[in-house]
């Protein structure tokens, strides 16, 4: 059973690195960076090795709490292993990039140990999350990645914005985590099992507990994957170092939510309103976030909103049961969005601002970054031959095929908006007049290499669709509906589908219109009134939540006035409580 050991290794290797990192740090502070890169490389190797060890069925069951019957196990099917491979490989690339990107951290008074330790812990927890069969173990790793996210968003803690953003991320995702917790206990109540694979095979019939569990998982996904209405934490999370934004908030952690929906799809698809609810939320969020990205002046926040939008597309695919399309878009998006964030990191590091209106004209000064950013953008927009094109069109085709025509229409409109905001980002940063006085140039090799590797992956990852889909078809139970899809079939579906023709055609028209009216559009989006203002303020959802949390603190203060400090009142409280208890007991007796 060698495969199980590789899986455990992929989880424990980075965690061991995190625990041992203080030793490297104590020897020489800067050494911790290469120490972390080494462990990340080992993890990457192990997670890529897992690709050859995909199998169905549950491995390495461990009876964790025999007194109650909670056991944990590993599941090495393709659904999880692909995400683990993404986490491991992008984790390594980000770690390599970080060596140069974070080199000034110590001088500014931030500990590199904290950065690399938490990042390693994160990678291990993420891989553990997707390789776990037991839903309790999923929850444990789910919370751990959430903690790492909070700690890394707050990394530059001397900036109060960062601390606030980290706390906000933690609290908002915790709200979603309540959903996962309820799902665990509800599933236990209805099936007395914590093993996801076993529950899928059991195929329980629809019941109240199952419905509660299903919507609990949906709530968890809304929190973790920043879907409406819990989307507010992700744009603020951009206070994190850009490497963390690339790794956690684009390529891996935010995918955990939609991944869980996909994994539990066979379980909850029998609940009448669940698939529809998932598709509606995903589709709405996709459109909603895309509109906000149009007016966002901050480069990273715009990419964050774009991520929220793309996650909405993935969520819709999962809700429609299109598992192959879902997973394919997840992997494609991780690659090109990770690429875009790392490019953004290069830009921001050079111009010392995140405001796109202060950038511009960088194309000639950083040629490699320019090209790689274009590649990422074209993938995001969904231009043919880039991986984003194939995966997005597959998603659209699957959702349409599952009968969600309205959703398909909305997603097509979203793809228009995606084209517009992506092009706007590129234009503002790389074209036009150079608005910054600072000198900019291409980055050193430690930062260039990940960009180049990811660009190549963006160009060619789709070619492996046949192996990709066969892995899913072979290792997942049939209830997932995963089927083999060859390259030829993909090309046929995508290029011959009338839907695709319509969407590409309309895309070209929209692009041409946007180009023609670009000046007026740019001016409109820059304004601070009307629709543009609503977009820039995120439709004031942030303010809504701020008011709500102030309200909670207000309630706390009001309740605290019962603590008068006067013993007479306190004793009166005892008497009052005593009367209430006697009343409840008497009523209980009458109703017995």
């Amino acid at each position, binding site marked *: 059973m060698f495969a199980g050991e590789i899986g455990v290794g992929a989880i424990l290797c980075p965690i061991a690195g995190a625990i041992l990192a203080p030793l490297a740090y104590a020897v020489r502070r800067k050494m911790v960076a290469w120490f972390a890169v080494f462990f990340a490389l080992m993890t990457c190797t192990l997670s890529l090795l897992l690709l050859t060890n995909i199998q169905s069925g549950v491995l390495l069951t461990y009876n*964790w*709490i025999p*007194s*109650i019957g909670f056991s944990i196990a590993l599941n090495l099917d393709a659904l999880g292993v692909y995400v683990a491979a993404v986490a491991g490989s992008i984790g390594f690339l980000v770690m390599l990039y970080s060596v140069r990107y974070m080199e000034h951290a110590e001088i500014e008074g931030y500990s590199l140990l904290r950065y690399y330790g938490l990042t390693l812990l994160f990678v291990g927890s993420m891989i553990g999350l997707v390789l776990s069969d037991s839903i*309790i173990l999923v*929850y*444990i790793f789910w*919370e*751990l990645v959430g*903690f790492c996210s*909070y700690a890394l968003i*707050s990394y530059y*803690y*001397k*900036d*109060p914005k960062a*601390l606030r953003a980290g*706390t906000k991320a*933690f*609290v908002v995702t*915790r*709200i979603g985590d*309540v959903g996962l*917790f*309820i799902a*665990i*206990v*509800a599933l*236990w*109540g209805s099936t007395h099992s914590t093993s996801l694979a076993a529950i899928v095979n059991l195929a329980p019939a629809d019941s109240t*507990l199952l419905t*509660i569990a299903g919507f609990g998982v949906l709530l968890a996904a809304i929190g973790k994957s920043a879907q409406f209405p819990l989307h507010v934490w992700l744009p603020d999370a951009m206070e994190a170092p850009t490497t963390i934004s690339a790794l956690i908030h684009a390529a891996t952690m935010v995918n955990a939510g939609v991944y869980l929906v996909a994994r539990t799809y066979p379980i909850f698809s029998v609940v009448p309103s669940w698939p529809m609810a998932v598709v509606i939320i995903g589709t709405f969020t996709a459109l909603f976030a895309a509109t906000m990205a149009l007016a966002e002046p901050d480069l990273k926040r715009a990419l964050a909103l774009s991520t929220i939008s793309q996650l909405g597309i993935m969520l819709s695919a999962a809700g429609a049961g299109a598992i192959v399309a879902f997973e394919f878009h997840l992997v494609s998006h991780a690659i090109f969005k990770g690429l875009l964030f790392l490019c953004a990191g290069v830009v921001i590091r050079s111009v010392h601002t995140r405001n796109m209106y202060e950038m511009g004209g960088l194309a000639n000064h950083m040629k490699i970054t320019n090209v790689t950013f274009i590649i990422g953008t074209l993938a995001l927009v969904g231009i043919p031959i880039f991986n984003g094109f194939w995966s997005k069109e597959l998603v659209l085709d699957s959702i349409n095929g599952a009968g969600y025509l309205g959703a398909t229409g909305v997603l097509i409109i979203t793809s228009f908006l995606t084209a517009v905001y992506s092009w706007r980002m590129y234009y503002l940063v790389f074209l036009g007049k150079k608005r910054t006085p600072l000198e900019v140039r291409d980055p050193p090799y430690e930062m260039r290499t990940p960009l180049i590797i990811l660009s190549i992956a963006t160009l060619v990852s789709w070619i492996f669709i046949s192996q990709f889909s066969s892995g899913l078809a072979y290792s997942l139970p049939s209830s997932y509906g995963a089927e083999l899809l060859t390259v030829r079939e993909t090309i046929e579906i995508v290029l011959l589908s009338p839907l695709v023709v319509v969407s590409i055609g309309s895309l070209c028209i929209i692009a041409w219109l946007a180009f023609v009216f670009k000046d007026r559009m740019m001016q409109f989006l820059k304004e601070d009134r009307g629709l543009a203002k609503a977009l820039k303020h995120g439709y004031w959802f942030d303010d809504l939540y701020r008011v709500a949390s102030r309200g*909670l*603190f207000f*309630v*706390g*203060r009001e*309740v*605290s006035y*019962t*603590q*008068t*400090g006067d*013993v007479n*009142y*306190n*004793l009166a*409280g*005892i008497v*009052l*409580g*005593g009367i209430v*208890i*006697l009343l*409840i*007991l*008497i009523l*209980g*007796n009458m109703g*017995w």
Partner: protein
Amino acid sequence: MALVGSITVLYPILILLLGALLSYALAHVVKRSANYVSGTAAAVASVCAIYVLLSLLQRVTNGEVLSVSLFSGGIQFALNPLALFLSLVGTSLTFIVCIYSIRYMEDATGVEKFYALLLLMAAGIVGIGLAQDIFDMYVFFELMTVASFALVAFEKQRWEPVEAGTKYGVMSAVGSVIALFGISTIFLYAGTLQFDRIGTGLSAIAPEAITTTIIVGGGLMIVGFGVKTAMVPFHTWLPDAHSAAPSGISAMLSGIVIQAGLVALIKAIQPLAVLEVTSFGLTLALFASVSMFVGNLIALKQRDLKRMLAYSSIAQMGYILLGFAFGIGIGGKGVALGFIGGLYLILGHAFMKGGAFLCAGAIIYAIGTRDFEEMKGVGRLLPSIGVPYTVFALALSGLPPMVGFVSELFICTAGVDVTGWGLVFVVILLINVVISVGYYVPSINTIVFSKEMGTKVHDARSVPPLMVGTIVLMTAITLVLGIYPQIGMVIAKPAADYLFRLFS
């Protein structure tokens, strides 16, 4: 004094009482470094008690009945799994607090009285578990309580501990008297106070009288013991007492004393609950929910670290109480998992909250303040406080893989299995967990991730190894109990099964 049975049952209490005497006397004999002499003597006594209990663990878990009776059955003690659980947690915490307080209390006068009182309090806790009738339990309950009055008010030269101690004393006395009313009601009608005989005693009287006796007696005892358990609205003494007491005592109070009050409550109402006249479980669940909300909501606005932790204890007692309510049953049969959850949280909370209070004490030792504004960044300057405090606060907020999460998992899983409205209470608990994140995480941000250093932090003195060592030990236990719960199950599961059998 005819003694029937194995006297080994009494050893832990006798050791602790002897230890109290010795640690007081030795300090007067040696006359130098009273804190080291007394503290070490007290620590040694606790270790001996722990050793005796551990040596009996296997036999008790296997179901062997270890009991002793004095005065021809007038007073009976039995070391059942629940008593073993309570005693082990209590003595372990006592041991850690003794070591910690050696340096923490080094500037106090009369420190030998501190350790004597501490051991007396521990003896009271052990006695609550061992007692086999309500009145004896009440006696040890009072021993624990009176010792804790003096300990809360120990720094008698400051007004705050004295006020807190006085309020605590008054409220506790009122509670004790009310409990005594309840006990006498039961005695009047049942003719006996022994836990295993009350049921038969009550069945012999007229049916109408049974209902009244149970409701009145049970209700009064819930109120009386509920004051000590810090159930809302009987909790108002707790924020002052736990804040003003020396930090080792705060750890004991939040960690085991209020939980001992809960065990006393559960033991007292058990003979009444099995007669199935009314739903004690539902009553406890309702009050648990109120406690959770009040504790968490008021904690949000606190600007004093120890006061925040005190309100958090009120909320955590709500979670524990809910677990016990699930075990007893809400309008139907209970589930053993509820007792497991409640007991496991008692175990875990002793170390999580105890550890947090010890960290607060270390901060007081280093910079002399409990105020959040003044302690900004102290965790960064002193990572030996910062890292453990982060672990404790995250554990208390229910983050895996620490013990808080595991306990809440057990309690909520029990809530789904329990007949009736269990799921509603589970949702209430989870909402409260999210609310609690709203004060735990900002406290971590203030202590560790603060840009500015508080005004007093620059002159911080370093924390002694004895204090750091105990804090690190608590951190390790918090992590181990969460990652490998089977270790805690060794004492929690037999106690839970024992309770479940009693309540069925």
